[in-house]
Each structure stands twice: as structure tokens, then as C-alpha cells.
């Protein structure tokens, strides 16, 4: 059997699971946001010498889109909209990012004013056409795009969700000329929401393709993306289920109730900074350390994060699977001691109290986002699942939780399993916790 690889290519780490049917290999590597592919290529060196990349198939997840949007690493993209509404993106909903503050800071747009063009057309609120799209007008628009040297185009016409005719007509012409095109009409919301979505998609599209080409340069010919979206299998009547992926740089929640399924990344994460303000109030977040500068414990940043406190409390076991990364607790201690002193606490107690606050905030965010929590069963996946699932379950009031024995690679294993069997159930061996204690005689105290 040829090798099948599942990879999670993130900005701080790359996780891989590879199997040839007879053996399964697990690997991790550090990564950087601006070198996502090279971190992955390095991780492949953990595979045996007989591994042939050209025969392997690759399933992957990546943070590429998230990073590209955050850092504005996109392509030259144009925005085409109904004439008279060219400033749609800039005007937005006319609100400020912060309720308080005397200067309303300008929010940088993915597509600048110079690349926003109006097109003569008009669809009415009932979907009927008032002014049709003119062929000559399209030619004129095409000439503008050529001068602007754009690679991709987002199209959002007013009321296109009621009648997408003009968007489709223009998109066909643009595609004929070789542009990547994203129309707004398939997306939900008003013209502002649809325009933002179409622009985000168009902005990252050429980069995504380049990312795939980079993977192909490594030698992969068979690649497919693991979708993060929630699957829609319904939960049992009167109950709901929740799977949480706990990674060092991301916590993702998949929640299914009878009525709906949602998937989201939490704002509270192990990368949140911990701090105390000048009035003496302690904070977890909202600042994040991201991969640059990174956690103090990994020899990088100087601002303490939740992850550093987890390391300090001795819960972060990285060495076995991650020999190249050393956790430097002395660096953490240097930052933590003065903070604890301000709070008149010893560092251990200080770290523990911050973590208690972290779990409380995390649970609160999850409950706030999924609505009333009607679940009794939580499944934890990911590297920090053994550490985090139990205290979080207590905060959520969940009585039973499951953590797979290979929790670090849970999502990737599930993806491989689903690929090989066509079955999406995750029925591998697991450790079960009930009422805060592990089966097999293990207990987690927190």
C-alpha cells in the first residue's frame, strides 16, 4: 500500500500522521507563518527512507487563509460593484472598531479604493432588472483590470442574491480572460457581508493555488483539503454532542444539536497573553502572541501566555514526540516571578489561578457561542486534550468526556480513517473520563 499522509500545516507547528497500512508514524515540526511549506517539508524527513512522495496521497489542513487575511498577504485583487457604490468596502456599516476612543481608527481594507470599480447595471430589490449589463461596459472594465494588473476579481452587485444574472454574466467574461473570480451571490447576508466574503475569497485564491503548487513541487500529485466545516449528522433527540480540538495555537469546537451543527475557533486560546493592568485587575487575553514572537517557554517571546503557564505547571510534555524543541522553564520563571510578586502570590499559585481564569473564560465563550449547552458528553482531541479537557468539562458542567489515546493526532487520524473506510465515525481506542476521573486508574488534577 502506498503512503497516506494527513498533515495539519499551522503557523506554529506542523503535525503529520502517515501510514502505509503496516505502520503508522506520527511527527511534529515547528513552523513559521511565512514558511508554512518548508516546515512541512522538514517534517516529512521523519518518515522512513523508503517513503516515496510521488506515490503518496496527502490530506491536509492549513492556516494559510487565516494568516493571509490577517497579514494582508494576498494578490492584486479588484472589486467590481454596481456603479455609485464603489466605496462599499470602505464605508462598511459606518461603525467604529471600539465603542470608546476619540480617534476612530481606519480599518485597512484588503482591496484599496484604486482597485474598486463601478459597473453600470441595476437590479431592483425584487430581483427584476432595471438596467442591464452592457457588453461595451464589460470591455471597458476589462481594460481597467488589465491596466491595474490584477490577478483575481471579487464581484458584488446590489440584490445579486435575488437575481445573480449580472454577476454570472460578468464572471464568465472575466474567467475567459483568465482571472480568478469570486461572485458574492452564493454567500449569505446583505451586500456588505457578501462583498467582504467575496473579496476575502478572491484575495487569497491565487495564494491558495500557489500553496498547492508548492506542495506539488515537493512531489505530491494527489492532494486534498480536510474541510473544517461541521458535518451535519444530527445529535440524538434531547441531547447534543461536542468535540473540541485542543492545540497549542488553536482551540476549535464542533457542536451538534438536534437543530444545527456549528464549527468555530475560539477567541480564547493558549496563545492568549496573561497580564495585570495598572488598576490591579488580571487579564487573560485579548492579546495573542501568535507564532511570532511565540511563547516564552519556546525561547522566543517575552510576553507570558497561557501556554507558558501550562508549561510552567509541568503539564506540557513535548520531548517524546518533539525532540527538537526544548521547553525553557527558566525563561518563563523570569517573567512570571515579578508578575506573581505584584499579586503577592508564589509563582505556582499565580500560574494556577491564571489557568483557572482561562478555563472559566473558555467555557464561558463556548456556552455563549453554542447557546444553551445541552450535552453530557464531550470529546477532546489534540495535543492538549489530556490537560485541558477535564478542567474545561468541569467548567462546562459536562459529566462525561472522552479523549482518544492518540489524542494529539485525533483529527488527522480521523481524516485518514475516513479516507480509507469512507466512514466518518471516530471509533479508535479511547480513554474515558467520568466525573473528572480517568478510566485505567489515571486521574487528572487541575
Amino acid at each position, binding site marked *: 500500500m502506498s503512503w497516506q499522509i494527513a498533515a495539519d500545516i499551522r503557523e506554529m507547528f506542523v503535525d503529520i500522521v502517515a501510514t502505509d497500512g503496516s505502520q503508522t508514524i506520527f511527527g511534529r515540526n515547528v513552523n513559521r507563518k511565512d514558511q508554512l511549506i518548508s516546515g512541512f517539508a522538514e517534517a516529512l524527513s521523519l518518515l522512513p527512507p523508503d517513503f516515496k512522495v510521488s506515490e503518496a496521497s496527502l490530506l491536509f489542513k492549513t492556516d494559510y487563509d487565516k494568516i493571509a487575511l490577517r497579514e494582508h498577504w494576498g494578490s492584486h485583487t479588484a472589486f467590481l460593484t454596481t456603479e*455609485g*457604490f*464603489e*466605496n*462599499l468596502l*470602505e*464605508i462598511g*456599516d*459606518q*461603525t*467604529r472598531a471600539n*465603542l*470608546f*476612543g*476619540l*480617534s*476612530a*481608527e*481606519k480599518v485597512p481594507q484588503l482591496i484599496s*479604493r484604486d482597485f474598486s470599480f463601478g459597473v453600470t447595471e441595476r437590479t*431592483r*430589490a425584487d430581483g427584476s432588472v432595471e438596467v442591464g449589463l452592457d457588453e461595451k461596459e464589460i470591455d471597458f472594465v476589462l481594460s481597467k483590470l488589465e491596466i491595474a494588473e490584477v490577478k483575481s476579481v471579487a464581484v458584488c452587485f*446590489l*440584490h445579486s442574491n435575488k437575481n445573480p444574472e449580472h454577476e454570472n454574466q460578468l464572471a464568465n467574461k472575466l474567467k475567459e480572460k483568465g482571472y480568478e473570480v469570486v461572485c458574492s451571490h452564493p454567500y449569505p447576508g*446583505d*451586500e*456588505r457581508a457578501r462583498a467582504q466574503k467575496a473579496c476575502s475569497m478572491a484575495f487569497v485564491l491565487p495564494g491558495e493555488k500557489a500553496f498547492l503548487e508548492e506542495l506539488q513541487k515537493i512531489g505530491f500529485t494527489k492532494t486534498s483539503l480536510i474541510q473544517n466545516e461541521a458535518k451535519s449528522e444530527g445529535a440524538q433527540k434531547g441531547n447534543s454532542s461536542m468535540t473540541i480540538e485542543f492545540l497549542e495555537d488553536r482551540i476549535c469546537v464542533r457542536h451538534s444539536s438536534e437543530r444545527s451543527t456549528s464549527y468555530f475557533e475560539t477567541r480564547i486560546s493558549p496563545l492568549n497573553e496573561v497580564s*495585570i*493592568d*495598572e*488598576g*490591579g*485587575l*488580571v*487579564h*487573560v487575553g485579548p492579546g495573542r502572541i501568535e507564532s511570532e514572537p511565540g511563547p516564552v517557554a519556546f525561547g522566543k517571546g517575552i510576553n507570558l501566555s497561557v501556554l507558558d503557564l501550562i508549561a510552567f505547571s509541568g503539564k506540557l510534555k513535548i520531548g517524546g514526540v518533539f525532540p527538537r524543541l526544548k521547553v525553557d522553564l527558566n525563561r518563563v520563571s523570569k517573567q512570571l516571578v515579578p508578575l506573581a510578586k*505584584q*499579586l*503577592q502570590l508564589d509563582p505556582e499559585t499565580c500560574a494556577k*489561578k*491564571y489557568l*483557572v*481564569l482561562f478555563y*472559566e*473564560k473558555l467555557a*464561558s465563550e463556548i456556552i*455563549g457561542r453554542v447557546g444553551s449547552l445541552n450535552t453530557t458528553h464531550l470529546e477532546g482531541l489534540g495535543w492538549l486534550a489530556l490537560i485541558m479537557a477535564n478542567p474545561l468539562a468541569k467548567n462546562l458542567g459536562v459529566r462525561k468526556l472522552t479523549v482518544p489515546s492518540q489524542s494529539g493526532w485525533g483529527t488527522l487520524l480521523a481524516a485518514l480513517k475516513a479516507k480509507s473506510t469512507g466512514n466518518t465515525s471516530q471509533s479508535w481506542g479511547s480513554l474515558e473520563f467520568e466525573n473528572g476521573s480517568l478510566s485505567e486508574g489515571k486521574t487528572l488534577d487541575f
Partner: protein
Amino acid sequence: MKGRPLISKSGADPFQIASLRGRLDDLLLGFRSFALDKGVEVHAALLDIKGDLINVAGPNPLHYPAFEACVKAAKKYIQLKHGETIITNDPYSGNTRLCDLMLIQGAYGKSQANELRYYVAVQITFEGLLNKDLSKIFTSVEDEGYRIPPSLLDDGSRINSEIVKYLCQKGMNADQITSALEVGRETLRKVGHGLIALEQSLGREKISKNLEELKKYSEAMMRRALHEIPDGEYSAHDVLENDGVDKLPVRIQCQLTVHGENILLSFSGSTKQVKGPFNCNHTQTLGACFWFLRSLVKADIPINAGAFKAFSIEAPDGTVVNAKYPAPLLGGYYETSKRIVDTLCLVLNKALPSHFPAQNGGSSNIALFLFESSAGTKFLVDTLGCGTGASKYFNGRDCVHGELHNTPARSVEALETEFPLQVTHSGIRESSGGDGKLNGGNGLTRGYRFLEPIRVMMLSDRKNTKARGLYGGVSGLNGESMLVRHADKKKIQNEKWLSDVDKGDTLIINTPGGGGWGKKEEPEKE
């Protein structure tokens, strides 16, 4: 203030305080989400048994002082019983506008039967409650709608139908009102239960102590920020162009006195209350001052009675900043409140030169549209953003509500779907921001073509005056509103006006730009 006001110095546990703060925020957030899910926009607050604010949430700080004021006013007249709800919309009982329905319930402890422990309050905004008779500019609060002083909405179970009938006299749909009131009552019950559950989990003594700590923390953080202002007296004034009735400027005069920890904003010298609807009540003036001073605090502090305790205001009775019955108030909420912020900006620039931006466009650009046809009556209150003032380090921002309310504007598609109009254009009004070393933000230009005859009332200010630039920066352009008649292409342009509009007529609104900062450097001549 000397030394660090560390919470831990008081003996309280900063982690418990942070945890309590998070839980109070979550309660209100859950509260607002629940109501928003049901299509009701609300401001919401928790108050202690004295009626002092514990926490408040919502997109417009002008509303925040209304909670304490209404609860304290209601307490004078009504002995609230378990399960009952008080309703008021009366700006002369501390509320903001007639179209903001304030509902108040008690949260009762479980250990001692029916002991009142807290108040929970929600304010539901219903612009449809405003008087739709746009036959003249409002000259009395009674012209603006129907006032309900603090009254019992229910007997603990059923809503008093007479109140709903009273509210619906001017064409509001009774089912819509009842349904929103039910959502309000339900959310109040939920939050009340949540608050009591929180008290039970933490213990009564501990929660009381920690709530006090949170108030002290907010006060200390406000005082710390205000302490940057040197001791002294600083004054300035700004004007509204007129009140829509008398064509005289309306003066907002403010003096800031700083003496150690005492911060006093006095509005003595401001114009007496005016005939037109451009008066503020005490709540609105306090809300505008609070927004400005809170904006000087960088940290994300809880908004409670402590935060308001850090400063005082003196707003003489019967003036445009503390109007008395029956002065009309609607434009005060939208326009005068902004001019109060503009005046504070001028005052603080004297106290701390270079710390504050040039003036914002300073108008909500409020327009009231009344559509009456055989299909029924529709009423639209639309506001638009302006350019903001440039500051020492930043250009101003284009097309944004630069101060106070921060509610998303209606989208063009929503406007066209809901009302018989078509938006002809909506864009940045180029070059309307004042030039300078740093430029003021540009205003917005928008056109509305009406598909049916309607009546329009324009109440926006800054049509003749401009947002001032600072340190050599040029003022922003003033606003404009032009009605272009379809029949004869005649243009009507006026400061504040009221007009019948025919099918096919177009209203163009150009909103003011923000002031520039610093003298623009001329390019060197060869």
C-alpha cells in the same frame, strides 16, 4: 493619585474580581444576544438595590445613565413586587427618548423569600413609537410621541393591554409591541435568575464585596486617566446653527475645572432650552460627557457607578443641556449630544494641547421619512456617518459615526427592500475632510430616489458651520441636503426642513467632513 491602586492591596483576590467581571459581562452579553436573536435591539443593565449601576451593555453610551435615573425615579413611586415589570419611556423621568422603552424587574433572593436583591433593566428601541405626524417641527415633547411615566407593565403575569393600546395610538403595530415587550420580560427574568445564581455560587457577602471592588477599580482607572489633566480652569464653546424654529445659534458653553482629584464640567452659560427639538435632558448630557471622559481610559474597564463617580457635571436647569418639561428632545439626542462632545474636545485641547483630534463632522445627519400609502404607513429614521477629525498621528476616518452611538447603519439592500425608495449612490464625499499635515476624514454622499410620495423631516446640523481644524489644519466641509424635484429639477436646500416629496424626487445628502490637523506643508517651488 499616588501609588498603584492595586486591587490586591485592598485584600480582595484580583482573580475573583476578574472572574466576577467576566461573568457579569457574559450575563449582559447573553441577554443582548437573546434579544437580538429575536430581532430586538436592546441596551441592558444590572443595578444594585440602591439603584446604582453594576454593569451595562449596548452600542450607545448616551443610554447608560438612563438606567440609574429611571430605576431611581421608579423606586420613588412604585414598590416593585416579585415578578412585576415596570415600564417607562419618559425622558423627564431619566429616560433617553420616547422611542426607548425601559423595562425594569427585580431579582429576588431565594434564601429569604422574595427579598429584593438587584434590579435588572432593559431598554428596547422602537423608532416606530415616534410621532408620525410630520406636519411641523416638534416644539414639545408631547409632539414627539406618547410619554409613559414609570408604571406597572404587568401584574407579574399578563401585560396590561391598556399600556400597549396607549403606545399604539399613532399607528404602531400592537402585536409587534407586545412581542417585543414579551422578549424584554423574558430576558429580564433570565438575567435576574442568572444574577441570583451567581450570588448563590459566590456567596452573598463575597459578591457584595467584590462588586464594590469593581466599582472602586473603575473609578480608580477613570481618575488615573483624568489625572493627566493639569489643575486649572479651561473653557470653550461651540454652537448648533439653530433649533429649526428660531433662526438663532444655540450655544454650548463648557468650563472644565480640575482641582486634584476633583473634575467638574460646568455648562453654565449655555443657551436656555429652545423651542425646537434640539434640547438634551440631564441623562443625554451626562452620557455624552461620560463617553468623552471614558474614551481617555485605555483599559477595558467595566462600566458601573464607580466609573461615573470620577467626575461631576453641572448642567443648569432649563438650559439646552438640561431641559425641563415640555421641551422637545429628539434632535438633542442625535445632534446636540454631538455638539457637547465637540465642545469638550475644544475644552480639553486647551488643557492638554495636541492630545485631542480636530473636530469630527459632528452630525448624525438625521432624516425622518414617512411613507403613507394604501398598503400602510412606514416610518424610517435614518442616520449617516461623517468624516472624523485628524489627530497628531492619524488622518481622520471617512464616513463613520465618530462619537457616541455605534450602531451599524442599515444596508442599501435592506433600505430598498423595506421601503419604497432606491438609493442612487452611496459613496465617500471626496475632499470634504479638512486639509492639513494630517487630513480630516471625508463625509458621505448618498442619494435617495423615492418611489412613492412621502414626507421628509431633516433635522441635521452643521449645514453652515464646519468641523474646526487644529493647529493650522483646515476645517472640514459643511453638510448639505438637497431635494431635487423630478418635475421641474428645482433644488430645495435648507438647514433643517420639512417637506412633501413627490414620487421620482431625489434627496441628496452630503455629510460633513472632519477637521484637518496641522498646517499642510506646501511642496517646494523649483
